[in-house]
């Protein structure tokens, strides 16, 4: 604000400076005398004018509907207007106003007299109390409890004590898998070497438990931990698409085109590159994730449609304290 005011004052001084009569010479000036610089003044007036023209151009572009795709003209005119104004002010500072160097004392380090007076003031004001400590504690207790009381309604911000909802998923035995287009997924659509995204049919897709990533591997390459031997019919594996590290969707499938370079297929999260092995039940083979990717047991139903054969092998999504003690549950 102060600077704005200063600037306004400076502008007014400049505008009126020409017409005002010279002030009578005083012996002691505040600001030292310096000779005028007409050339710099001319340039300054020019810069102000160009700045105004650019700003006017901005107004014109906004006003004219006929100019399609306005952003370039708007940005150029506004940016240049500000740039010319900046140039004008720098010129003003460098060539036209008096830049004198002055010094003044730093403020005193402390004020011992006032400090002593404050101490005394407080000590004398409290003289009538006989049980100062108890009074202070009672007062602090009242104010503190009132503060807690006022903060208490904040628990209604969220289900702070309901942690079961963190392990709830829309999956249960028999639930259909649908693709991104909403059609049921068939086993014979799932090819090796690529990955598919699936969701729980007839359920909200925007919950951590819904999205799946599907891959197909040769049956001979599967080494699923027991009792998951029958979880991948025809070698089709379904995992939660949500990384157990930080909740991003897994969207990279490292499929070894050159087995020497990348020994086995892996599901990779693009946020922090947690890497999971689909052949061994989603175990972590690289990156920061601390928990395997939860696997969903699959079953191939009539006419080859894919269905869930139960719920996930573990809680879906990022971990929390005690996450392993929660079993994924289906909504009631």
């Amino acid at each position: 604000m102060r600077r704005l005011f200063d600037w306004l004052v400076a502008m007014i001084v400049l505008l009126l400076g020409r017409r005002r009569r010279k002030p009578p010479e005083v012996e002691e000036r505040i600001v030292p005398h310096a000779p005028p610089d007409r050339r710099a003044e001319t340039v300054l007036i020019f810069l102000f004018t160009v700045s105004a023209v650019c700003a006017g151009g901005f107004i014109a572009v906004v006003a004219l509907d006929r100019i399609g795709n306005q952003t370039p003209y708007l940005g150029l005119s506004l940016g240049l207007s500000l740039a010319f104004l900046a140039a004008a002010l720098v010129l003003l500072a460098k060539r036209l106003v008096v830049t004198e160097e002055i010094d003044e004392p730093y403020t005193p380090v402390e004020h011992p007299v006032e400090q002593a007076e404050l101490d005394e003031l407080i000590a004398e004001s409290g003289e009538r109390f006989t049980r100062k400590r108890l009074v202070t504690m009672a007062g602090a207790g009242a104010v503190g409890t009132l503060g807690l009381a006022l903060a208490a309604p904040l628990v209604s911000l969220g289900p702070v004590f309901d942690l079961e909802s963190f392990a709830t998923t829309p999956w249960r035995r028999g639930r259909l898998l649908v693709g991104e287009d909403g059609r049921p997924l068939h086993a014979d659509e799932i090819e090796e070497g690529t990955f598919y995204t699936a969701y729980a049919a007839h359920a909200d897709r925007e919950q951590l438990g819904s999205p799946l990533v599907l891959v197909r591997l040769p049956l001979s390459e599967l080494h699923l931990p027991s009792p998951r031997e029958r979880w991948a019919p025809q070698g089709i594996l379904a995992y939660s698409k949500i990384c157990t590290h930080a909740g991003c969707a897994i969207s990279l499938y490292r499929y070894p085109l050159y087995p020497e370079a990348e020994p086995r297929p892996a599901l990779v999260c693009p946020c922090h590159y947690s890497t999971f092995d689909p052949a061994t039940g989603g175990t972590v083979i690289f990156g920061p994730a601390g928990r395997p990717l939860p696997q969903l047991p699959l079953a191939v139903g009539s006419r080859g449609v894919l269905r869930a054969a139960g719920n996930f092998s573990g809680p879906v999504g990022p971990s929390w304290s005690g996450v392993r003690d929660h079993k994924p549950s289906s909504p009631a």
Partner: protein
Amino acid sequence: MIRRAVRYLDRRAGMAPALKKALRYVFPDHWSFLLGEVAMYAFFVLVATGVYLTLFFEDSTAPTHYHGPYKPLDGMEMSHAYRSAVDLSFSVKAGLLMRQTHHWAADVFIAAIVLHLIRILCTGAFRKPRELTYYIGVTMLLLALLEGYLGYSLVDDLLSGMGLAIGYSVALSLPFIGPNFAALVWGGPFPGSGAFWSRMYIAHVLILPILIGGLLLTHLALVAARHHTQFRESPRHTERRVVGVPTFPGYAPRSLGLACAVAAVLFLLGWLVQINPIWLWGPYHIGSSTNGAQPDWYLGWLIGALRLVPGFDVVIGHYTVIPNPFWGGALFPLLVFGALYLWPRLERRLSGDYAFHNLVERPRDNPLRTAAASAFLTWVALVFVAGSADRVAVYFGLSYVGQIWFYRVFIWVGPAIAFFIAKRVCEELVAGEHAEKVRKAAEERAKAVFEQA
């Protein structure tokens, strides 16, 4: 007219003495003192452009469909938040310019704060009696980071949605209280209740800006109360007297020139250099993500930390005590900001220097401090650089896994190297100056002897 205004104000508000003092306030001059001002002016641009954006933005995640001039998104399902952000980019006059300038201003704002902080750290400007100013500055940096994160999260595009998922995971990973805390903030498990968007919005456009603005005023008031620090440029610059250019007429036009230059650069960037093209990312859905995801630069150190931590949860028996994102997402920033907050006390304790200081030191004048600051900054910078290892893998074909293992070791070795290099450079610079002084004195003496002879 000026005369009348001055009389009017003085008779109503008794302002003449204060105004006189303000106009003759002394600003010591050094280029590095401008960094804080750049941050302040970027903040003004942020407020101005931000207010314009709030007039068009809708803070709702309720689903809707986009119909507008940008055909690739036509008919797509998305939230009102994302649709309104796309609309204000394509269908509102000056909307795209304001949005891009706002985003650029946020990046420049935080960059300027960080450079300002480095300047303060390396010159010892945080020392008594200016610790409060320093603590407030560090707090403003913390709030600015949060403010920036909320700002780009509000848009609800695919990239920012992933950022929110990570933020949620870090909140969830806080030992013991994690799920309760996350449920409180998000209003339930991710993606949370619809009210979460209103909470982010009010925090971004009202609560945090007011906090930052209030702290900014306090920061400036404290600077003014103790006056600026200065370098010992001449014998006139002492601990007792401050030397510089007065606000008026000398300093005001310079500072206002800087303000206009900052605004000009930001608007020209907003015009010329595309930033966060949200229409290319598409709307966020929980089951989608984009590859090569990189946040705004000021969160790079956190994504680096999250990526570097090896894959483990702290588990006792079958009980998960500390989930993995805690280390990189919560503990690391806690340590960094803890170190920043404790720096003045630690330095006082270690150096035994409890005196008042109005003169700041050049980095070379205090080799130990400069070395410690270099080590600290190198540590954070290496973690930051590690966050871009995936891009390096794509552009240069270096193994991602190999890079991560390199950084896991080098973030500890690098700071040690930086410490010794910085210390040595400082000592050599001082020694060089001393040698120069000795040489000059010897030359003078030789000249005198020669002239005598």
